[in-house]
């Protein structure tokens, strides 16, 4: 009956979409009590490791995230100029 109604109404029910979106979002937010979440930790540690070796221009770093139900995506694009300066690395040792 619901399907027939939808056929005439021309629209799918939106509540299941709302339910799924909330489940995904809240599962990420609840795990976060106080401490930064895994993706956040990964992001900052990746950047700190990279910046040990090169001078990372914050403007040339693009971080994208997509929090999914089963897996999440963390995308870090770092523009590395050719002829990378290794001065930082020497200074660090």
């Amino acid at each position, binding site marked *: 009956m619901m399907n027939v*109604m939808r056929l*005439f*109404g*021309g*629209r799918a029910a*939106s*509540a299941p*979409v*709302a339910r799924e*979106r909330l489940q*995904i*979002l809240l599962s990420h*937010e609840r795990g*976060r009590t106080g401490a930064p979440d895994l993706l956040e930790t990964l*992001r900052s540690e990746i950047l700190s490791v990279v910046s040990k070796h090169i001078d990372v221009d*914050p*403007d040339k*770093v*693009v*971080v*994208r*995230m*997509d*929090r*999914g139900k089963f897996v999440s995506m963390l995308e870090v694009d770092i523009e590395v100029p050719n002829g990378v300066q290794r001065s930082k690395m020497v200074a660090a040792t």
Partner: protein
Amino acid sequence: MAKVLVVTSGKGGVGKTTSTAALGAALAQMGQNVVVIDFDVGLRNLDLVMGAERRVVFDLINVVQGVAKLPQALIRDKRLENLWLLPASQTRDKDALTEEGIKSVIADLKTKFDWILCDSPAGIERGATLAMRYADEAIIVTNPEVSSVRDSDRIIGMLDSKTVRAERGERVEKHLLVTRYDAGRAARGEMLSIDDILEILATPLLGIVPESQDVLRASNVGCPVTLNAASSAPARAYTDAVRRLMGEAVEMTVPVQRKGLMDRLLRRRAA
């Protein structure tokens, strides 16, 4: 010249966030470059209503504190390439938002966008005053209901005293947006009418958004109603409101729901 617009109300739950998303999308649909900023620190929801909640990396506080650059924190809408979101922080550290910080973020955004829409938190505390602080214009979202109208009056007073423009002796242009309006109930005297509200608040009307199931459906799926159901009554109301914001003279009507096939069939049978 970029315009800073605050969407505010005093009272919670009247439709500020829904309206910010719908108006922002409607402006972008007309080709404007738009950024919507969530000022509700600790209780962000504009990301959810816009369907960008899974993609938040940085937020307004990160930018204010210098942890992230502005372009890194801006999230581009997946449907409209000239619509961007600057999310609020989910942490409770409200004090991290400083007046100076907001000032510089807004100054920066003004160089990149035509419209900067600030979605205010409810209440009259710091978050709400910061959201309106640098506004050129304000949209006061009001429901035809006594407590909402009273709180709108309070907010109008604050717009006239606590904004930078007011302190300079200039004017913040104010617009009233009545949402969840039911013309039938108003006609029967069960609900405050538009005339009642306008008489009490003495603020020019920007639009009348009728109560509609399309609004809930849009937030369920995370898509502004002007995109999700462009021909629906609330979407047409928001689009008309945006045309008025852009200076067009649009006749003020209460858009009515066009009946679906099922409604018409049922009505015919009932008649």
